[in-house]
């Protein structure tokens, strides 16, 4: 983290955005690193002077100082003096006192001679050591930068983003790793609540997004900035997630401004482990995820999806299933089922889970319960659907539950459809129409199509069928007939032929002749 006077933010549009260093600043970063490297064995005063000269050339002196600040963490300064300065001072002060004070240069010399005598060292060493431990007279003993200029820029950008949070009074976070987030919030002795994005009362039909609102205990009474450094530390945890977004309300000298950071910004935690392979709390969960993803279902699985509010706490279910008819999560209605695997842990764990389930907000929840826990009924009484298991969770049992939701979704979608539909197309497949309407194909089963005829799984206007029929004749090669039908957009040839009163006399695996029935 930097000091606040080195903060660079843009307040454009009422915002509060850190001005990150970018590729163009690379030469400057290299010069700062070079200045440190070039001043090993020289005094801090000389180093500071050289850095100040860089400031003159640079566009923004704060950037130079910020980079230097980051470098300082890798620098080691030490006092170099022939004799320990504090002992020399004591001897010199005592000597001056014995001479009734030192005013003239001659008196000073006499006092230093006495001091040198009392320490049995040379008088020059006394003068050289007297204040050798002052900060600006200390010597840069070593500079071991763990990074190259690009690494320094990365370090700077993270520090800058953290510094921008110093005056934050509240942060709101979305993260692909909510568990780490919540545990960091607790560790930093902050408080949180879960807020849903649709809580703003605007019914715009957008899907609910839950964010974790983080404040300190005192936030209830004052928009306190005392938690700023903790928010800054929290950023390290937030930025370790693969996907994240952090919004902060900043008290900028009495004006509230909004700061937004996300994984799009150049904010990386250098010593973070590379975004971890999905890790699971238990083998049961890992096993289930692997087997579920091997199936081709109308549901997409996501792990540790989002934090749910439960009473005054948070619950982060193990998985969520998002409805994705045909494997396309944009198709069909937004519908999410949460899934929690309750393995055998400790009685406290089971009790905590039960109380979470009892208080959790109104969402669709499926819980897999280890039969040996004997709490299936308790769970069922919390409105969650129960899937009992022993050993490992059977995917089929979960799929059965999801199928029930699917049936309801299909029925809901069907109920929302009109009794009859007249698509503008001459030819359209049920699949395409279903997608257009945002329903599954099954939902179209009870819909009437007064101007179309159903040929296989395709709707066709009778006029098109007539035109196609006029080009077909008894005894035509099957391949030719197929080409004709294809021209009219009828790609299910056998269904079309059958509708038009033909059958195929097959003469091998692919060839054949079209015959009137």
């Amino acid at each position, binding site marked *: 983290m930097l000091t606040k006077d080195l903060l660079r933010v843009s307040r454009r549009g009422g915002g509060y955005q850190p001005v990150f260093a970018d590729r163009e600043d690379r030469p400057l970063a290299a010069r700062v690193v070079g200045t440190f490297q070039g001043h090993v064995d020289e005094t801090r005063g000389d180093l500071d002077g050289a850095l100040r000269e860089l400031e003159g050339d640079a566009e923004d002196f704060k950037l130079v100082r910020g980079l230097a600040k980051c470098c300082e963490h890798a620098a080691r300064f030490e006092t170099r003096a022939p004799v320990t300065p504090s002992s020399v001072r004591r001897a010199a002060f005592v000597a001056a006192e014995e001479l009734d004070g030192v005013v003239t240069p001659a008196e000073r010399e006499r006092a230093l001679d006495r001091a040198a005598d009392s320490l049995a060292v040379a008088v020059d060493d006394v003068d050289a050591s007297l204040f050798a431990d002052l900060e600006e007279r200390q010597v840069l003993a070593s500079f071991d930068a763990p990074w190259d200029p690009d690494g320094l820029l990365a370090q700077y950008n993270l520090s800058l983003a953290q510094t921008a949070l110093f005056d934050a009074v509240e942060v709101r976070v979305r993260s692909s790793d909510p568990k780490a987030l919540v545990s960091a919030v607790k560790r930093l002795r902050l408080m*949180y609540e879960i807020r849903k994005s649709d809580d703003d009362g605007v019914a715009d039909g957008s899907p609910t997004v839950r964010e974790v609102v983080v404040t300190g205990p005192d936030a209830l009474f004052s928009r306190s900035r005392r938690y700023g450094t903790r928010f800054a530390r929290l950023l390290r945890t937030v930025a370790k997630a693969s996907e994240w977004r952090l919004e902060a309300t900043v008290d900028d000298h009495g004006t509230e401004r909004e700061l937004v950071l996300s994984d799009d910004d150049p904010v990386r935690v250098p010593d973070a482990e590379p975004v971890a392979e999905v890790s699971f709390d238990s083998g049961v969960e890992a096993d289930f995820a692997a087997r579920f993803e091997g199936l081709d279902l109308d549901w997409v699985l996501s792990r540790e999806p989002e934090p749910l509010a439960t009473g005054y706490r948070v619950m982060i279910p193990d998985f969520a299933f998002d409805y994705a008819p045909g494997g396309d999560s944009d198709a069909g209605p937004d519908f999410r089922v949460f899934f929690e695997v309750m393995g055998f842990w400790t009685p406290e764990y089971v009790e905590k889970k039960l109380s979470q389930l009892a208080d959790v907000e109104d969402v669709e929840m499926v819980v897999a319960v280890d039969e040996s826990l004997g709490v299936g009924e308790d769970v069922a009484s919390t409105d969650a659907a129960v899937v009992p298991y022993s050993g490992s969770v059977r995917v089929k049992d979960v799929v059965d539950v999801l199928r029930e939701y699917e049936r309801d979704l299909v029925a809901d979608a069907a109920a929302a459809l009109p009794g009859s539909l007249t698509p503008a197309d001459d030819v359209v497949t049920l699949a395409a129409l279903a997608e257009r309407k945002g329903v599954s194909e099954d939902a179209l089963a009870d819909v009437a199509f007064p101007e179309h005829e159903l040929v296989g799984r395709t709707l066709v206007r009778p006029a098109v069928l007539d035109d196609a029929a006029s080009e077909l004749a008894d005894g035509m090669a099957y391949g030719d007939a197929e080409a004709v039908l294809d021209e009219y957009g009828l790609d299910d040839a056998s269904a079309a032929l059958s509708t038009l009163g033909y059958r195929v006399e097959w003469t091998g695996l692919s060839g054949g002749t079209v015959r009137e029935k």
Partner: protein
Amino acid sequence: MTVVLRFENGSVRVDGDVPDAVLDAVPEMEADPRSGGYRTPAVAYAAVRDALAAADVDVDDRVLDLDSLPALDTTYELRSYQEDALDAWTDADRRGNLELPTGSGKTVIAIAAMAALSTPTLVVVPTIDLLEQWRRELDAEFDVPIGQFGGGQQRFEPITVSTYDSAYLKAEDVGDRFGFVVFDEVHHLGGEGYRDVARLLAAPARMGLTATFERPDDAHEVVAELVGPLVHRLSVDDLAGEHLAPYDVKRVEVDLTPDERERYEANQETFTDYLAQSGIQMRSGSDYQELVKRSGNDPAAREALLAKERARRIMLGSEAKVDALGDVLDRHRDDRVIVFTAHNDFAYRVAERFLVPVITHQTSASERKEVLQRFRDGRYSRIVSSNVLDEGVDVPEANVGVVCSGSGSEREFTQRLGRILRPRDGKTARLYEIVSQDTAEERVASRRR
């Protein structure tokens, strides 16, 4: 139903059915959607407790977690004006501020209050030197170990002394461990950053001590909210002659050397030229802020600021001042002299040239202690310091003070004066003020009068 009170990270959590009368009586109490129940800042603990008692509610009060302490005794005999101050505070329900001149024995009043209450107490002070001084004092007075937050230590004891900075950081942790809190130099509490120290402590009994309660920014009103009203006030004039030594002020004006003058004028010109060009007029602090803001992306503004700072340093650290100081030191070879400077640089120049023991922010705790101790016991008769000795530090028997470069604030002047308001062999104390002639500094010095 019983109402449960708990201390949680600098706040008091209130669970149970709270009657409306109590909510009305304690406006700070708020429902907390994050945890359920109600919450107040810890400072309101006494108010919550009193309001619940008045409403006749059953209370399970778990807020304070106080270690047991033997009855505390003090050997001090209070002077009559100290007695009056203590009585006024006790009558104000043990919450309030006392304004007394430096050197009038404020510490003694607080020690008497601690002995009377015999409850775990936190003493909050602004500087490391005061921290040391209070610890020494309490160690000598009470037969219990004394804890310390600050100066490189974080050790809790039922009686603990802390800096404001450490208390700011620790208040959330230890806000439930003290029944009484003493704020030395309480005007610091009005600073935006330090208010939380008092807000996040639950201690019902509170005492503030200062020589200058009122702050120009009216922040003393905040102090009154956090600690209590000003319950007793005594001015220097009330005490002068009787308890404090009279003093003279001598003003020494020095010229810059020709070289310094040249550099001073050149830098000053860079600054004023920029002002003229950019149309900024230095009328108030916000004009200065504007300049600082511009310096972020305007190299000329930055150069102007740097030039101004160079001019200031030339004037504050002029060679003539060092010479003038030499004259003062020469004249007072038999006296006990304290020299104040506004900057470390100048303090070290004085120390190096005249071999005068020096204390600045950079001085280590052990060396600082050694120098002060030697000054106290007479082995050293002179000392030079940057601002660190400004407030309250007990430096006995100094009778000559030299202010080499001041910032001109009212408080600093009073308190620096206070440093030497101590009788010594019936001798008149003397304060020297050494200023550079015909510079901005002169205006600062005359503003003080």
